[in-house]
């Protein structure tokens, strides 16, 4: 069985470079297919077709797209060189996106911790209270927050905390340990709570009536010990791996809106600006980076599911 799992992982990993090749070609084509090009975007009012052509020639933008792709691919594979950013005046891509990823990653980590710290106990509590009015009301409460799009939630949080209560600045960014982090952290963490809580609830319910739990109760342990020692450890911990992978997707999308709305210099607002200003190489590099992150997260989730669930593991549906 572990043999099959190893083969499965290898097969999935072999598929990674093929996917990246197709994704990069598609993205390369789409970005360059749009009207205009970075040269005309960044020159602003200045209009001199002859100079434009010279710059285009310098960057190889006058060649056919497929030939440009060949050159780009060769540079990436041989030197790990993703080209230069047009917007940031010829600076290298890792140099431009590195600090931004670091900001987003830490912000995402804050949000992650809060989502789980609130979500897991909430889910366990709802499961223990199954059959009473508390269970659906608690889950419904967080489901309501999940239903508010981030784009809608952020201005409302600004209105509440910055305008009415005047606790925090209405936007901007002054360090990750500051009051300005309140709104982005809430906006990124609260929508995810419902999902984590529901999974924790389902997992808890499935173990709540197991034999070993009955034994624990029969031993005379108090309810809190039974729930946290015996039920939670066996239901929620395996679940973590799965949810961590799934949350990554929501986090990246949430970051795009939150960072754009609040002016936080992270990767989310950055990719939006890069797309809008047709900074080809940057867009391509970030898309590939996120694709790799997604694929790794998906692989971890699938492997965790197979390894943890004997039904999936033995059903032979692994392809």
């Amino acid at each position, binding site marked *: 069985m572990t043999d099959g799992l190893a083969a499965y992982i290898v097969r999935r990993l072999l598929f990674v470079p093929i996917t990246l090749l197709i994704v990069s070609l598609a993205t390369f084509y789409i970005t360059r297919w749009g009207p205009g090009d970075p040269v005309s975007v960044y020159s602003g009012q200045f209009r001199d077709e002859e100079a434009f052509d010279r710059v285009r020639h310098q960057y190889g933008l006058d060649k056919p797209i497929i030939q440009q792709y060949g050159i780009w691919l060769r540079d990436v594979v041989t030197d790990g060189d993703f080209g230069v950013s047009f917007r940031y005046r010829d600076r290298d891509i890792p140099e431009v996106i590195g600090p931004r990823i670091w900001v987003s990653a830490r912000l995402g980590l804050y949000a992650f911790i809060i989502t789980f710290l609130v979500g897991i106990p909430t889910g366990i509590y709802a499961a223990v209270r199954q059959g009473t009015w508390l269970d659906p009301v608690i889950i419904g409460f967080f*489901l309501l927050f999940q239903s508010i799009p981030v784009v809608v939630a952020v201005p409302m949080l600004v209105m509440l905390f910055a305008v009415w209560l005047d606790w925090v600045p209405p936007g901007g960014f002054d360090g990750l340990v500051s009051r300005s982090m309140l709104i982005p952290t809430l906006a990124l963490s609260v929508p995810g709570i419902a999902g984590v809580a529901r999974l924790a609830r389902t997992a808890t319910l499935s173990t709540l009536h197991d034999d070993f739990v009955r034994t624990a109760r029969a031993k005379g342990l108090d309810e809190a010990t039974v729930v946290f020692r015996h039920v939670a450890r066996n239901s929620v911990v395996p679940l973590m791996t799965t949810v961590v992978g799934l949350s990554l997707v929501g986090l990246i999308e949430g970051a795009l809106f939150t960072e754009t709305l609040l002016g936080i210099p992270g990767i989310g607002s950055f990719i939006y600006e890069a797309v809008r200003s047709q900074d080809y190489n940057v*867009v391509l590099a970030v898309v590939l980076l996120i694709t790799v992150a997604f694929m790794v997260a998906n692989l971890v989730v699938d492997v965790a599911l197979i390894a943890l669930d004997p039904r999936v593991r033995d059903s032979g549906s692994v392809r």
Partner: protein
Amino acid sequence: MVLAAAYSQVSEAAVRTDSPMGRALRRLLRKRVAVACLAVILTFYTVGALAAWIAPYGYAEQNLDASFEGPSLHHPFGTDRNGRDTLSRTIFATRTTLVVTLATVATGSILLPLTLGMLAGYRRGPIDSVIMRVGEILASLPGLPMLVLISVALRPRFAGSATQEGWVEKFEDWIGWHGLTSSGFADYFIIFFVLSLFGWVGGARLIRTQVLTMRGSEHVLAAEACGAGTLRILFRHLLPNVMPLVIVGASASLGAIATSEIGLTFLGVGIQPPHPSFGALITDGASRTVLENHPQLLLVPAAVVATQIFAFNLLGDAVNDVLTPRAR
């Protein structure tokens, strides 16, 4: 004898109306939450469909003398910077949600997953491989950035730009009717196209798996032995068995579709002004002056959006409960 035969026919008919779908629908209608959600969604959809008759003002009707008015009898929710009635704009934004959700659900959550999933599962072989590999690639792409990217690239070709005639305009010339551009058709189409393009993968995978398990079952084998053609087997024998999956998927996707439209419009690649959308209303309502002085311009659309998507999500849950016994 005759009576007994007639009797058995009647009872057979009674059994037939008691189809799995009928039973599921009755179970759904017994849930109070589900009925409430259905009522809310139907209300919004009716308001959206009748927007042109219900709304007291047009969505683009400006009155610069009445800019940023507070709530009054003429304007129950006040007016925006350009003196446009907030209530009317909210009603027309509901119409946008209606068009986008219905069109995208029909294509991205029903038609595409059904066709591709059944084809992959029943035909297997190279068709299956191609469909599933394409799906895998789409699923591993970062969704939102790709949506923005494709919309940015597609819009000028599709809707036209200052220097170039777009596909819509060419199509208008061809059919000889020039109402499409002004109706905002191009915006709706781009949103629905990109959302469908990425939306079919999950559903198609589930349907494929279901078809894979079904194709070896006795009733399908019997039909094949009787010489039934591929189409007959797909529609008569496999389709009824994958319908629950399709319905669960479609109802679960409503909220996500509505959210995506708002997000894309907010990022400037969705519905273009002056056409109304909740994304546009929220963007207008999120500016500093509005937040401080005219909170209703944000709160009204925000409350409507939250209610709508909450109802979509709760309904999706209820449908899932009813049609997937294991989830209960």
